[in-house]
Structure formats: C-alpha cells, structure tokens
C-alpha cells in the first residue's frame, strides 16, 4: 500500500464525509442567519449575520417547545413500556416450554412487519371509539402495539442464548419465575435492552405517520408534524425553519452520541440474527 494510495483513499473518504456532513452543517449555519441576510443574499449564500433569535421564534411562536415536550411524553413511556412487555414475553417464550411458543413468537413478528397502512384507518377509528383520539395516550398505545413484535423477537433470540446453569441455580435456591425474570435474566439482557432502547427511541421520536393519524390538535402534536406545521407558518423564514429542524434533531442526535455503541449494535442485530 503506497503512500499515494493511502492519500487517495483519505481524499476520497473526506469528500464523501463532507457530502454527508455538509447539509447538516449548512442547516445549522442557516439557522443562525437573520431574515434580512437571507432576503438580501439568498438561502444559498454564505452567512453575513449571526443571531439566535430564530431559535426563540421557533421555540415559542412556532410551538416547538410544546412539541418537543409532547414527543418526549410519548417516546419515553412508549420505549419503557414496549421493552418491558416485550422482555416479559421473550422471557416466557425463550426460557420455558410454553405450548405453541414458536407460533406465538412468529405471529408477533409478522404483526410488526405488516405495512402500517393496512391498520391506519381501523386504528384511527378505534382510538376515536375509545376516546383516545387526539391524545398522547393513543400514540403511546399504537407505538407499543406496533413495536412489541420486533422487540420480542430480538430479546427472545438474546435470552435463548443465555446459559441455563444460572437459571437452574436460582431455581434450586428457591427463586420463583418472577424473581428469575427480574433478578437473573433481565440484568443479563441489559446489552440487548440498551441497544433496542436507543433504537426504539429514535424510531418512535422520528415517527410521522402515526402522529398525523391519531393526533389532530396542534398543541398535542409531537415534533415531526409540528415541524411540518412550522414550515407553513413561517413560509419563507428559512432560518426559523432551520432552527426548528435543529431543535427536532437534537434529542435523537443526543441519544445517538450517548449510546453510540449500543445504537449501532442495535441496528446490526437485524442483519446478523
């Protein structure tokens, strides 16, 4: 491997990386430009000004703060609930010879693979019927129901491979099913839970389709539909829209940076399993 080749490799990869990072950097810079600057010099120009008022506008006038709170109020409980429930099922199905366990597991996975379009209309009607429509509860319920299958499948694969001796030892020591679950298996499943947790956080937080199907009122909207609304509200105020975009992206980027290792292994679970 000559020095020239190494140089060529890095030049090419730096180029590719810039192609990927460029748009992000551009939008962050755009979010700090003033309205006048953009009106005079165009959205495509280099910045001639610096302001953070755009964030204040998106935050308060644009309702991004409320939307961010709504998103977190949906995402955090939905992640905890779906992982908790999935872990229970995965535990029962992987560690005990429950009749029909394989069928149940695959049926649950199949439910997760369904295109959401087929259930969109019935779910929106059902949430109206139960009075959940236009509340964050509806969104939490949908996200839990729709995520369970995949999380159960992945956790099942992980729990199945845990050594049996630990569980046997706990049984001999007199631990019941509940204790084996909470004290033995769950702690050993932590890496998989962390990976799925990071992954499902971004999935649920980033969702648009369910949000616009079961939520109607602007003040109840999570971040993704609110961002689309911001676009209608601040038609050509590109810096305010850019600021809203940055606000909507920060939580998932934070989760990614905080859980980078788990996050990537979570994505890879699908490929190797």
């Amino acid at each position: 491997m000559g020095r020239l080749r190494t140089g060529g490799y890095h030049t090419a990869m730096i180029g590719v990386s810039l192609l990927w990072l460029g748009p992000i950097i551009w939008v962050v810079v755009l979010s700090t430009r003033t309205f006048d600057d953009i009106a005079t010099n165009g959205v495509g120009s280099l910045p001639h000004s610096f302001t953070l008022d755009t964030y204040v506008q998106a935050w308060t006038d644009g309702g991004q703060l409320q939307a961010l709170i709504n998103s977190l109020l949906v995402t955090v409980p939905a992640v905890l609930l779906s992982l908790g429930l999935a872990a229970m099922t995965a535990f029962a199905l992987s560690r005990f010879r429950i009749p029909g366990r394989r069928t149940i597991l695959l049926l649950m996975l199949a439910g997760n693979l369904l295109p959401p379009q087929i259930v969109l209309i019935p779910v929106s009607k059902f949430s109206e019927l139960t009075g959940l429509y236009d509340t964050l509860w509806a969104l939490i319920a949908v996200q839990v129901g729709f995520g369970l299958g995949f999380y159960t499948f992945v956790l099942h694969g992980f729990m199945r491979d845990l050594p049996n001796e630990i569980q046997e030892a706990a049984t001999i020591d007199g631990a019941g099913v509940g204790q084996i679950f909470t004290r033995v298996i769950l702690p050993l499943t932590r890496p998989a839970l962390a990976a799925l947790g990071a992954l499902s956080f971004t999935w649920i937080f980033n969702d648009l389709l369910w949000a616009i199907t079961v939520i109607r009122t602007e003040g109840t909207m999570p971040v993704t539909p609110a961002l689309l609304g911001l676009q209608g509200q601040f038609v050509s105020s590109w810096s305010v829209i850019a600021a809203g975009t940055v606000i909507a992206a920060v939580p998932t980027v934070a989760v990614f940076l905080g859980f980078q290792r788990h996050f990537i292994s979570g994505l890879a679970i699908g490929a190797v399993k």
Partner: protein
Amino acid sequence: MTTVISTNSTARRRRSFRPSPLLLTFVLVPFAIESIWVFWPAIQGVFFSFTRWDGLSAPVPVGFDNYVELAGDPVFRGALGNSVLWLVLFGGLSILGGFGMALALQRERRGVGVYRAALFLPVVFSMVVTALVWRVFYQPDGLVDQVLTAVGLEHLIRPWLADPETALYAVIIPALWRQIGYIMVLYLAGLKAVDPAVHEAAKVDGANNWQRLWHVTIPQLKGVNAVILSVIVIDSLRSFDIVWALTRGGPYHSSELLSTYMYSAAFQSLRLGYGSAIAVVIFLLALAVIIGYLVRAFREES
C-alpha cells in the same frame, strides 16, 4: 444454532409442562395488546376495503367495487409504478452505496471511525428533518442551483420539487442520503462475520481483489443480503414521511407512492373504503416478503 433451553430436563416432564399463571400473563398481556392494535385492525382493514365509507355514517358493503375502480384509476397506476421505481432506485442504490461504503470502511485504520460516523449521522434524523434539510437545497436560490451555476450548467436549473419531471427523483436523493449509512452498518456487521482464513487462502491461491470479493466475500454475505433485501422491500412499501414532507405526492401525483395515495384517499378525500383497498394492495405486496422473512426466522428458531 443453539437449542431451545428449558428448565425441565426430562422429556416426560417437558410434555406435561403447564405454564404458571404468571408466565401465561407474561405471554398473553403483550399478545393481547398487539392483537388490539395490530391483528384485529388488520382484519378490519381488509373488511373495510369491501365497503364505501366516509368515516361518519356506517360503511356500505360494495363487494369488489373499490378494487375494480383501482384497476382503472390512473393515479393508482402511477403510484404503483412510482412505488416500483422507488423500490428499484431507492432500494438498489442504497444497497450498492451501503455495500460500497462498508467495503471502503471495513478495515480498521486511521480516520475510519470519523468517516463511518459522518455517513451514519443522518440515520438518526427523522425523514421530516431530512426533508427540510434538503428542501433548503432545492430552493430557487439554494445550493443545488448555485452549484449548477458555478459549473456552468445553469440551463438545467428548474423548480426541482415542483416539476413533475424531477419531483420523484428530487425526493429519492435525500431518502438515499439517509438510508446509505443504515445499510452500511448492516453490511459492516455482516462483513465482520466473514471468515478471514478463507480470504487468506484465496490470496495465497492468487485470487485478485475482485475475485476475492466476488467468490469469497459476497457468497458469505448471503444471510445479510436476505435480511437487507427484506428490510428494503418492506421499507420501500412503507416509505411515506419523506414524500409527504417534501411534495405530498405532487405535483399532479408525479411523486405519488402507494402509501401517500392511500393516506390522502383515506384521510383527505375521506374515502376510507377506497383507501383500505389501496392498503390491502400494499399489504399483499408486503406479504410475499413477510412470508419469506418468516420462513427464514422459522428455520433459525428450530
């Protein structure tokens, strides 16, 4: 393949295993939740596709009318064609790009972590965020036009998202920008599992880089490829956010996908029966893939 672990060790006790009430709850509660929000609605969805329904009054059974209408609906045909094009372009290019990047960034060397992170960062964004980032670029005085002007191609400039000729492609590019990093991660995981000893042996036998890639690496990625292909097909059929955020299927349905058409038919035109019929078509297309996926998962389980 690992064997299924059981707390009961003898075959006789296995056959007579009766799950405790707690274990039954562990299985039944989540299963019930999924049934309420997924299985039952899916069955209802099929039922609604045989009705005419405005969402307010009761659904009126109309037999196969919706499907007959779909067959003659040019917008539906266009959406079907666009969905196929989307699958081929979005799916094909993200697999090629992701695999290429995974090969380039496979070996641990200086700087590789930074490049990987750069390609991967957009994966954590929502499609809506991605869409808005790119919307700025497609603006009349945005970066795309500026670059074209700078290289002397200003005659190509057009309203990228508002021109029926270019709208669909203008939507695919940001979708790819986000997807390639994701596919790359899947391939990086797959490449890690490729046996280096076989590579060495092929090298000793005088195989060049291309031959090793073609005859050693790719055959060993069969499992990963199958998963990625399923993921891509299912994702393509589901794709909605990016199109909705950029064009809502327009102009003149030029970037309409089955998913966006279903949504607007159901929730904007309030033709819930017709929308359900489109959903059933999407479902049937996905079903073939799902069955393939499950057969694979089933084999692994046993």
